[in-house]
């Protein structure tokens, strides 16, 4: 840690923060010398009865999830792994959440505390290790999804959840519009939903909970059980499903869940009950972004493709002003992951 601090303090060049390197594909641009944080790893504390785990940010997700699994617990936001080396810090910096997100919460929802090194190498500790804590501004959650532009994440405390007793994935043949309607209607009923997706005429629904609850919900909803449900969601979560292969640019569309089917060129996969849609397309950003903005959503060029169109949805000028001020506050010299989120950021 001291070495990291020293490196930040003394550098005159931008630094590119990296642990496992599995998310090098993500973000606007990769500038600067690599600041390798992968050695800063290890679980600091974990007590199942507290529902809280604290780990250094270079810790691989796999290590954390294996330990939680041994105690019948899990990360409630079901983070994707884009390789075996995916780290906690990278996941939180990107703010990535998986299939369970609309039903249990996002990465930032589970963050309780964060320790960072700011752009001057100063070690700052925000939040804590308790589930309820409203002392001070919520800088821990501000860091989540900030792509390392406000500080090097060094340690995080997360709330964890008990694993459900049983899970069952159901399949229903239906068209896109009907699937969107059902996903939203069912989310408004007391059903043990934990994931939903639609692709090529099939709606996939995962139920999680007590054995009887899952059985009863299946009886209510109908649908065909999927024989390899666990694997299905893992492939979807980690972008290993067939949909994600190929050379076309991959867009992530985030929008209100009820938005009717989007008429855009290319093929689509719907996740998060309709609130997240993946698009493989050659369509131009200038076609995609206005459609999303009109629905109250935003579009990210997630992987592959020409990044000069802007990876992230542009912000209104007034909001950008506050982003720039926060960046200047935490990284006055503009050296941390410069250009990764927005140009010159």
């Amino acid at each position: 840690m001291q070495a990291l601090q020293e490196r930040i303090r003394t550098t005159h060049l931008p630094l590119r923060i990296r642990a496992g390197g599995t998310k090098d594909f993500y973000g606007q641009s990769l500038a600067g010398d690599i600041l390798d944080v992968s050695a800063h790893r290890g679980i600091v504390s974990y007590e199942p009865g507290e529902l809280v785990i604290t780990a250094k940010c270079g810790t691989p997700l796999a290590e954390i999830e294996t330990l939680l699994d041994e105690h019948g617990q899990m990360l409630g936001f079901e983070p994707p792994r884009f390789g075996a080396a995916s780290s906690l810090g990278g996941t939180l910096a990107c703010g990535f959440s998986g299939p369970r997100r609309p039903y249990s919460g996002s990465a930032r929802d589970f963050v309780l505390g964060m320790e960072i090194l700011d752009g001057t190498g100063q070690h700052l500790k925000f939040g804590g290790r308790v589930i309820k804590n409203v002392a001070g501004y919520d800088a821990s959650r501000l860091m989540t999804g900030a792509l390392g532009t406000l500080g090097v994440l060094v340690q995080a405390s997360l709330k964890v959840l008990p694993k459900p007793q049983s899970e069952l994935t159901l399949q229903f043949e239906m068209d896109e519009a009907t699937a969107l309607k059902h996903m939203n209607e069912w989310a408004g009923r007391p059903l043990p939903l934990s994931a939903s997706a639609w692709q090529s005429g099939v709606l996939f629904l995962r139920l999680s909970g007590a054995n009887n609850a899952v059985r009863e919900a299946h009886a209510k909803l109908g649908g065909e059980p999927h024989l390899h449900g666990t694997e299905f969601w893992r492939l979807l979560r980690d972008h290993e499903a067939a949909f994600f292969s190929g050379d076309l640019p991959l867009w992530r569309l985030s929008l209100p869940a009820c938005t009717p089917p989007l008429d855009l060129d290319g093929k689509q996969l719907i996740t998060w009950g309709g609130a997240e849609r993946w698009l493989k397309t050659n369509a131009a950003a200038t076609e995609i972004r206005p459609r999303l903005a009109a629905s109250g959503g935003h579009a990210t060029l997630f992987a592959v493709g020409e990044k000069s169109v802007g990876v992230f949805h542009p912000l209104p000028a007034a909001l950008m002003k506050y982003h720039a001020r926060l960046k200047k506050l935490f990284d006055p010299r503009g050296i941390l992951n410069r250009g990764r989120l927005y140009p010159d950021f």
Partner: protein
Amino acid sequence: MISPDIIRRLQAILPPHCLLIAQEDVKPFETDGLTAFHSTPDVVALPETEDQVKAIIALCRETQTPIVFRGAGTGVSGGALPVDGAVLLAMTKFNRILSIDPLARIARVQPGVRNLAISEAAAPFSLYYAPDPSSQIACTIGGNVAENSGGVHCLKYGLTVHNILSVRVLTIDGEELVIGSEALDAPGYDLLALLTGSEGMLAVTLEISVKLLPKPERTQVVLAAFDEVEKGGAAVGAIISGGVLPAGLEMMDKLAIEAAEAYSHAGYPLDAEAILLVEVDGTQEEVSEDVMRVREILLASGATDIRTAKDEAEQKKFWAGRKAAFPAVGRLAPDYYCMDGTIPRKALPAVLKRMAELSTEYALPVANVFHAGDGNLHPLILYDANQPGEWEKAERFGADILEMCVAHGGSITGEHGVGIEKISQMCVQFGNAELQAFHGIKACFDPDGLLNPGKAVPTLHRCAEYGAMHVRSGNLPFPELPRF
């Protein structure tokens, strides 16, 4: 004192019924829910339109006049305490529910809408708004956003920050910002999290979109009694590590049980040292399974009495005692002072033991109600404000409790906010570097420091003074404990 010129200009912005100036009119606004602190405001503005709010903000910016925002005034940390020379701006007239979309499960509301009113309006669709602070009948959603309010169901359903989708705010620069969206995320930094719980220091909220959840099919409450507080604390950990995530998990100690029973006849066992209330919710089948598991765990944890509510009436009765615990304890003494520390649950026995010792040292009784599931303590210190020196004693006792929470790896406030009340304890929880970062965040939004000045984040100077006073003869309190 505010200048007559500013009053005149406010009179030009607001119709007479929206501006209170006379002593007898402004007096009721001298305090919020923390009545130990009070200060008569110079002027109270009760705007009815967003244009009026914008004009007031512009006036205050131009004349460098501070503003204190206020909702229903139910906050219990002095966040809405008037500041000398400031305009007290109450948002309570913005009380309209703008829309409820049952399919999207979203309610768009103005900041002055009462928390409970949202759930009432959503009830015909079998939906509700989850955070339920005990003041929910009166407190406003705008205040909830400012304080990041919680309630008894936080362990499973989260705080305000987990249950809102977007806010439209006005900055001191007069800019309207939409932060967050009705999608599940928004581009850029998570300013929604930053603004939630910012105690009216960064911006004023004009509109809020909240998430609505389906009402659980069924809820069930189990009451368990213990002959030792420690056993009750251990049972809480056992339930959670046993794989059950209760909707509510509350604990009360002997003094609180006695007071609650005398007040609301909930049928609590009076011979118990502690009781637990465990609420589970979900589908019919889920609840049945969870209740069985909870009962087994409670039995294995040494509960002396375990009761499952027979019907809804008995569930209500079990809860009635807990919900009335504050007024019930209020009958034991002329005044009580409610604290709001959080601790890792495993620290509970040590914290309760030390609290009992402190109670003896200060000669002030303390009753404990505890959101045990999420480690949120609400010790109620009993005192008599009419006895000279008693309030000061209660305040010092409270400060000791909060600092003990920090020493155990917890926090000085779980859901009430810092306000003016816990501003000195912020110096204990955070170092100078973090406090400076907080001041920096404040300056990003409010460079002139006009919004709710003097609240939530102490000056480093104040901390230096507090530290000098507090580190008695070079010894930190609780030196035996590891510091986090």
